[in-house]
């Protein structure tokens, strides 16, 4: 790691730690930003590096959300009575119960989706191109409908997650969820950065560029595809678990298996920032979130039109995303050697 890099990382880290105190009113938005970055970054493993456009990552996110909340409640109280809609009883978590439950819940929320990703991946990662995209699109929709029929997790009534216990002051809840999501974001970043510096990334790229050739070279592509998806599932599950606690209410199709919003947003963010790069999804998610919050404030009623325009602009002017655009403009800054003669020749051709 060179010196510039170190300064950058320390800068971002200290900004991340200071952010909730610098902008105390924006803690929730900042936490959501962290979750969005996690989702975009993990989607990029499939969509960007591996060339498999997955709409199914929302499955792991929703699964994590339901699992975390269920474990958090189920460890201490009967889950069925908690979610029963006409229930007369009120259960209250003590602070110790809440945090213990959250910790175990997050663990389960990470592990189970990983296993599920392995199982599903084994059966559907054989599909390619559009077929894979459509199939994964179905996964999220199906999961939403199925979970909307399971009584023990509240079915159509939804699931109210345990309220934050009475510790500290009014700000504690926001700070807790912010730092939780920030820590998971850092873990995700370290993990993904680590992966991208190994042969694993090259194999994913090989799959993207020509899967048959990669296979002919002796790479067991299926194995790598599954492992890649499991890594995404692990962090998506964690992100979902945190989001469930942050929102406080889980609805099967609108909050958990929210393919229409989160499922599409994660793709958009990665494309906006530049898929197939480490920093692209992060920049994309940040820009997207800021624009979105801005539109929601200043274009009330027209926010989706504004968002639509943004998407059109991205597709037309930045088809390779912000990072891709920058790379084209300043290739030397990305460590690419540019032949001046060649560039001049191109300019003349135009």
């Amino acid at each position, binding site marked *: 790691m060179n010196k510039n890099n170190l300064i950058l990382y320390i800068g971002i880290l200290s900004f991340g730690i200071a952010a909730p105190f610098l902008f105390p009113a924006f803690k929730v938005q900042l936490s959501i930003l962290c979750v969005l970055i996690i989702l975009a970054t993990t989607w990029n493993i499939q969509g960007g590096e591996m060339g498999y456009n997955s709409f199914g990552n929302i499955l792991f996110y929703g699964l994590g959300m339901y699992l975390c909340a269920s474990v958090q409640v189920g460890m201490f109280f009967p889950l069925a009575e908690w979610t029963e*809609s006409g229930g007369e009883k009120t259960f209250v978590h003590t602070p110790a119960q809440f945090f213990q439950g959250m910790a175990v819940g997050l663990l389960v929320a990470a592990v189970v989706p990983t296993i599920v990703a392995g199982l599903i991946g084994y059966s559907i990662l054989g599909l390619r191109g559009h077929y894979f995209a459509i199939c994964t699109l179905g996964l999220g929709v199906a999961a939403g409908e199925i979970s*909307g*029929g399971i009584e023990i997790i509240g079915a*159509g*009534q939804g699931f*109210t997650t345990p309220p934050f216990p009475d510790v500290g002051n009014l700000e504690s809840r926001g700070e807790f969820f912010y730092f939780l999501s920030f820590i998971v974001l850092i873990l995700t970043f370290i993990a993904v950065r680590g992966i991208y510096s190994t042969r694993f990334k090259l194999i994913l790229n090989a799959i993207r560029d020509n899967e048959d050739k990669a296979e002919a070279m002796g790479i067991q592509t299926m194995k790598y595809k599954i492992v890649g998806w499991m890594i995404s599932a692990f962090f998506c599950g964690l992100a979902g678990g945190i989001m469930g606690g942050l*929102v406080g209410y889980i*609805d099967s199709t609108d*909050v958990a298996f929210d393919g229409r919003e989160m499922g599409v947003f994660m793709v958009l963010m990665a494309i906006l920032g530049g898929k197939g790069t480490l920093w692209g999804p992060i920049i994309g998610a940040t820009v997207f979130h800021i624009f979105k919050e801005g539109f*929601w404030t200043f274009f009330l009623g027209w926010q989706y039109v504004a968002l639509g325009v943004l998407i059109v602009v991205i597709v037309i002017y930045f088809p390779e995303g912000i990072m891709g655009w920058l790379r084209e403009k300043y290739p030397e800054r990305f460590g690419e050697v540019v032949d001046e003669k060649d560039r001049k020749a191109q300019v003349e051709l135009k």
Partner: protein
Amino acid sequence: MKINKIIVSFISAAVILLSTSVVSFAKVVGDKIVLGAAISLTGKYSSNGVHTQNGYNMAVDRINSMGGVKVGGKTYKFDIIYYDDESNPKRAAQLAERLISQDGVEFMLGPYSSGLTKAIAPVTEKYGVPMVEANGASRSLFTKGYKYLFAVLAPANLYLDVAIDLAVEKNNGKPVTVAMAFEQDAFSQDVRLGVLEAIERTGSKQVIDDKLPKELNDMAATLVKVKQMKPDVLVVSGHTKGALTAIRQISEMKVDVPMLAMTHCDAAKLSKQHGKNSQYALCASQWHKTLTYKDDFFKDGMTYDADFTKEFGYAPPYQAAESSAALLVFKDAFERANSFDQKKVRDALAATNMQTFYGNIKFAEGGQNVDKPMVLFQVMCDDGGKCENKVVAPTKWASAKLIHPIPSWSQR
């Protein structure tokens, strides 16, 4: 790596944007009491969201023009900050947080639908922000021990149980067979529980119990079953879209059923949109213009109906009426508390006991209004095809006699 510079500049741009978007309001600015509300202006609840917003606006204008709110010898006017929650609970919870922590709102009005209210209530509760809501009827809202939540409407399980009782009564006290089709959302599922209780109480039998998807556009499968099983009562609940879909497909498929009980008929403007096809549908309603409640601001139901129609160009469904009532409750509570202290206002709200054009309002421990019964109306059409909603139950308010059983399609 020069790329770092680019990234750093992006982050600083983000920071600048974030900091400039801080717009601060206070709860009481000058002579204004600022209330906050997340409303579904887009998404699947958008039509009812607009009814809610119109109801709020109508009451704000009326109260402001009639002298405003008097607190501590000073006169204040209501003002509302709206955001669009897109009919999405996640968004609603975020917006509640935003209204309270960024906009500094200290008093909230409810969103439309039980699911969204469920998402907002934990937030308002955490900050101790009193919320008067007019459109979250799910019973589970009132069993969570919320202290700052007040609902001017009767809970959802009371919507259609009366219909089952009515069917049993018409069947000479003998049990009936019931077919049920409910959307998978917090409100409709609660209506279902109420119906199930009524079925159990009367010893009746459920023959169909279907869950319908959100964004309800098709329930043909259920109706085919209804045609086969020939139940005595068909109960459908799925907000506005559910009501429209049910009437459209029942008339298309010529499904004969002696009693059809639904919710949201008036919000869906059924009698206007489907005319004679919607005839005989029995609908649960929180309010009807012919009820004889009175207050100083809107006088009575008929006047409210006329004023609202003049202002917004359509007859007010109960969603609008109850939303207007929420502001009357707030005004009353502010004046009794004679303060803007959140705790005092909350206590004043809890002690509310008043009559509005919409009905009596008195809150139980859990925050639900216990002093206002539901009414059932039936869509009735004259020969010219002009349809009207007429209250048929309870008998105290009835302005017409229930037509039962519904004549078969071949005789209509």
